[in-house]
Structure formats: structure tokens, C-alpha cells
């Protein structure tokens, strides 16, 4: 099963490589990874998407908890949560009909066109990874020039929060 794991880490030298290194050494996969400092500049938050059965996820969390710089670990997928990913996408948009169609699709998916030339649209789209995938399918492989995705971030619903 796909899990979103959030990790608060000390904002220290080498911490990302330690976390990533643990995954490599133990043969766990990382589907996506995002990291940035939090409101507390001494802390960074890593959000990591991985796939595995319950035993594997339990091991991943336990092994993460052994790393010195790791302050807190939470499996978002344990409870109700909100996940978001951002995508920037450059598509070929030549000819009135095609341009209209892309604009319509972007609106349907609640994206925004950020930049336009006479041949190209650059679109911003935010949502679950699934929604972003669906948009890519809707646009069609043929007209996609470039895709950049941020990786998933997540936060728990309700009053549960991850803080030191």
C-alpha cells in the first residue's frame, strides 16, 4: 500500500542523505520526496511517499526513529489526511481549437495557465497525485513538452498535528 510519511528533522548538515541512505541500504523504495524548512528554522519537514505492506512500513518508521536527526515521524496514511502535489506542465498549444481545448481542460481540473506563447501553454495544477495523473492523461502524451512535479506533501485532518 502507498503511504505518506512525514518526518520532522533537525535542520542539520547531511540529514537528507541519512534518510535517503537508510532507504537505499535497507532496500526500501521512495516514490517521491520533498523537503523544506518549517516555520521553526531549526526544523525541516520531509514528506516521503513509499509503498509497502504493513510490516515494511512499520520497519521504515522504526528505522527512521533510530536516526539521530529525526525528531518525529508520522504516517499520514494512518488517519484522515489531506495530500497535495503541485505540477507545472508545458504543453504544445497550436491552433485555435487545440488552445481552447487545453484551456477548457485546465479549467475543469482547476488549474491555471501561467504563461502563454503562440505555441505553448504553461499550466499550474495542484491536487492529489491521482488528479495530476488524470490531467496528464486528459491532455494526452502527444502534446506534453515538459512536466515537473513537486512530490507529495501531506497534513492530517482535524486536530491532529505534527509538531515538536
Amino acid at each position, binding site marked *: 500500500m502507498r503511504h505518506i510519511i512525514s518526518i*520532522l*528533522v*533537525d535542520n542539520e*548538515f*547531511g540529514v537528507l*542523505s*541519512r534518510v535517503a*541512505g537508510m532507504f537505499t*541500504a535497507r532496500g526500501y523504495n521512495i516514490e517521491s520526496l520533498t523537503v523544506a524548512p518549517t516555520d521553526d528554522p531549526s526544523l525541516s519537514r520531509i514528506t516521503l511517499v513509499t509503498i509497502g505492506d504493513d*510490516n515494511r512500513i*512499520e*520497519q521504515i518508521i*522504526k*528505522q527512521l*526513529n*533510530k536516526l*539521530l*536527526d*529525526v*525528531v*518525529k515521524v508520522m504516517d499520514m496514511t494512518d488517519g484522515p489526511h489531506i495530500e497535495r502535489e503541485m505540477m507545472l506542465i508545458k504543453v504544445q498549444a497550436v491552433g485555435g481549437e487545440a488552445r481552447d481545448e487545453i484551456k477548457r481542460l485546465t479549467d475543469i481540473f482547476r488549474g491555471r495557465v501561467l504563461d502563454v506563447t503562440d505555441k505553448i501553454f504553461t499550466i499550474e495544477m495542484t491536487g492529489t497525485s491521482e488528479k495530476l495523473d488524470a490531467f496528464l492523461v486528459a491532455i494526452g502524451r502527444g502534446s506534453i513538452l515538459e512536466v515537473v512535479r513537486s512530490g507529495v506533501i501531506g497534513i492530517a485532518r482535524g486536530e491532529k498535528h505534527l509538531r*515538536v
Partner: protein
Amino acid sequence: MRGADMIVQVLADEGVDTVFGYSGGAILPTYDAIFSFNEQRAKSPGEQIKLIVPANEQGAGFMAAGYARASGKVGVFMVTSGPGATNTVTAIRDCMADSIPVVLITGQVATGAMGTDAFQEAPIVNIMGSCAKHVFLVTRPEELEATIRTAFEVARSGRPGPVVVDLPKDVQNWVGEYMGSGLLDIRGYRQRMESLRSAKLSDRKCKQFFEMLRKASRPIIYAGGGVVSGEASEELRSFARTFNIPVVSTLMGLGGMDTTDDLYMGMLGMHGAAHANYAVEDCDFVIAVGARFDDRVAAKAEFFAPNAEHVAHIDIDAAEIGKVKLVEWAHVGEAGKSLQQLTAWGSENGFEKDYSPWLAHCAKLKEQHAMNYDRNSDLIQPHYVIEALNKLTQGRAIISTGVGQHQMWAAQYFDFREPRLWLTSGSMGTMGFGLPAAIGAAFACPDKMVIDVDGDGSIRMNLGEMETVTTYGLPVKVLLLNNHGDGMVRQWQKLYFENRFSGSDKSLHRKDFVKAAQSDGFEFAVRVSDKTELEKVLKDFVEFQGPAFLEVEIDPEAGVYPMVGPGMSYKQMVTGEFIKSREAVGSQKGVLETSDAF
């Protein structure tokens, strides 16, 4: 104060009396600081920090490890950047795999030169990051002092392990104020350690445990290295005796339970005693303490203790719970404290159960399936050497080993009355461990006899350290069991590769080990190839004051039995010709089925 002097001062504050290491460019300031530190204490040598120089940095690593294993204190070693540091990678990984607390200080090129492919530069943080419990790189000199202090805290707390501190040369040369206290803020780790230390077994958990014990009629304690590293030996013995539960030990756990105790059933696992493995096979309740169901014990977790209704697991590392074997009852905490609480709870609540039929069964197993070998052979059997030596040392000497057949024979035939007498590279299986580990132990425990039992393959790996023994005039005894080959590899090649001895035949090797020992200054350097001489020479060897080297030409075809093949269950254990097996196992000859587990 110079950064280098601060490092030495923190070492002194931490109670370090010995540093093992090899100097070089990037660590020169700190070596100089040790020199000055000792010079200032010329009148009180007891306060000095001994600096012990090996032949190779890997040797320094295993010396520090031997020191830590024998004493329970943090072992310290210090090397230069680049090759000095990379030579210690094996030792660091070995300490990680066996949970041994050491601190390694590596010199690094100056911060400005880092990343420029400078002379003797290596990315130690990256390399060691994958092997050590933690690596610190000090780039802010004002954090130097606190970092060294924190390294000791991390090495010894929780599940112990190796910590590396990478120190750029400019940080060592920096001048600042020595604070004398202060640690790095490692809040997450420290919080987890705090909750480990305060972890208490709840009344409910104790009750559950004793309900399982009450239902059981054949309980067994499976004691691992955590009993030794957690200083839980007394608590284990008291728990076992209070409730009359037999104990099997892992390779790393040897000495946790007195091996001469009636309740002791022997070492279990791939080369465990037949009676130990049968007891595990027969038991109906496994109580695992500081053990991790590793593949040399439980090749296939589902076949391990197949008749056990319940498994209970106590470990300091939460990640070990459920990693290999799913258990019904688990507690994450210190082994000693946990056992003490269970003993107290059981006694207070009047727990009593008569396990005498089970104990009688175990006694019978020990009698019927006793360890044995070819006692009538004209060739010297390695087991005979260990047995004879054990009669002289009585389970009181520190024994270190290399890796291979001799290691297993030593584990099987020596007694260990106390913990920290058995120094072996268990998890990593590093050949060449024995000699430097013995040197480290000799510094840690000058009042104990230290014997390195080695093989001809293993001792070659760090043979340079023979000279270190004589340089420091250490009363280390080296017993070399020479079978002119890599015996364990040959044993597997016989079993699984139809006698194709690829790379394991050493019959063309010419080394005269006795001459080598003599050239390194061993005054006692003797070879025995006649069985009738052995007992007398062993006595001389043990009684000799000072470095002693004894080579024994053993039967090159001697094998290690029992053996549970990789990926197999204890039911399929091969006991060999001289140990009685419980039932005729499948084919004992020819190529056995092997699994993909190895």
C-alpha cells in the same frame, strides 16, 4: 585553548585511558595535543592517555572494539583523513553489526579544501554514514567540544554503536574557550533515549507474561548479545533460576549465562550444540532477551521453535521487534531492568510452576547429544585443543577469535563463566578480528588472561599486529589452529560445491608462522604437530609470562558440527559422525539442497 587540546581534554573527562590510532597529516594537531597532555602529566603516568599504534588503522579499530567489548566502556580510536579513515570502515561496520560502543575521530582536510579532491581527502561523512550509528562533521569549531562529548553519549546510549567524528584540520587548529560541559541539542534522539530508560513493564504486561509462562510446560530463554552489552547477566541468571527456565545463548550472548550452569543448554543456531537446538525445537514458549532472530539462528523464521505456542521478546531496539519473527508479547526496554521487573512481579505474585519434566528432558538432551569429536584420531583435532586449553583457563580467560571454523570450535568448547570474556565478530564475521581485539582487551583488562584463538586465514589478515603485541610487551597469547586453508569455506565447498576448493586451498602458502612470531619478538613461539605433546605445551603456553605464540597443526579435514544448513530448520541439523542425532536426517553425504537465503 586549541581545538586539538579540547578534544583530548574531553577524552580525559570521559575517562578515556587508552587511544588506539595511527597518525597522519590531517590529524597531526590532535596527536600533538595528546603528546602535550601526557607531557604535562609526566609525574602522574596514571592520568596519561596511552596512545597505542597499530600496524594498520583497521587494527586500531578492532583494538578499540576489543577494549570496548572486554570492558563495557567506550573504545576510542583516532586516525588521519583519506586512507587512514577508509581503513577503519570495516571496523566501524563490525561495531555497528555487533552493537559495540566506540568513538572514532578522523582527521579531515581543512574545511576550505573539502570537496576539492585534496590530498588524502575522502568523503567520510558519506562513507561512514552508511556504516556507523552516527557521523558528525564539525564545521563550526565552537561546537567541537560539545560534539566530542555528544559522540560518547550516542555511542553508549540505547542500543550501543560506533560514532564517527570527522574533524577538519582547521577546526583542530582553531583557538577558543573551553567550556568544560555542554552537549549538542539532539532532541529527538535524547527524548527517545529518555523514554527507553524510563520504560517500565506495566502490571498488565507482567500479568500477560506470567499467564503465558503458566500455560507453558516447556519454556526456554533465548539470550542474545543484548544481555552482555546491556549488563543484564545477573538479572538473566536470577530470572532463570527463580523460575527454573533453561537458557540457550546466541554466539554474541556467550557468557551472559554461566556456561557451566545446569540450566544452561548451550549455544543455538547454525553451529549450535545439538542439545541446544533440540531444546529450541521442543520448547513451547520462547523468551527472547536481547536477541534478534538473525539468520544464523533462525534461517527461516517460521521454522524456528515450531512448537512454541508463544514468543516473548525483550529488546532495547524497537526495530528488532517483529522484524523477523512476529511475537505475541514484546517489550522495548533495557534487558536488565525488564528481567528484574519480571522476576520481582513473579515472586511477589507467588508464581510457581513445576517444570521438572522439561528440565529432566533437557538434561537428557545434554547427555544424549553431547558435543563430541574423533577422540581416537592420530591427528590433532581442533576441538581437543580447545577442550584441553579450557581445562587450564576454567572459563575465566578472555577469548578472542578470527572468523571461521576455529571461531565455532572456540564458541562450542570453551566455557564462559562471566560476560565480556568472549570477543568475536558475530554479525559481520570479519576475518582478522581476533589479534587486534585481543590487544585491545589486554589494555582494558590487564588483570585477565587474554587468548586470541585464530586460524591461519584469519590471522594473516592482520598479521602486522603481531608486532604490536611485542612492542607493548602485552601478555597476549596467540593460539593458531593451522589447517592450511580456509576451513569453513572448504566445509561449504564440500557440502555445496562438490569439493571444488576454489580459492580456499593454502597448501602452497609458505609462511612459517613460528619464525614470523620470532621475528616479531615473541620469545615463546612454538609449533606442535604431535598430539602427545599438546597438553604439556599448552600448559607452558598458559603459564608463560609475556607474549606467547603457539601454532598447532590440526587435522585439515576436521569439520564444524553440528550444522544447520543455510535456510534450513533445526530438524534438518546434521550432527556429524561423533554427535548423536535425534533421528536420521536426510542425505548427510553429497550435495545438500541449499536455499536462496545465502
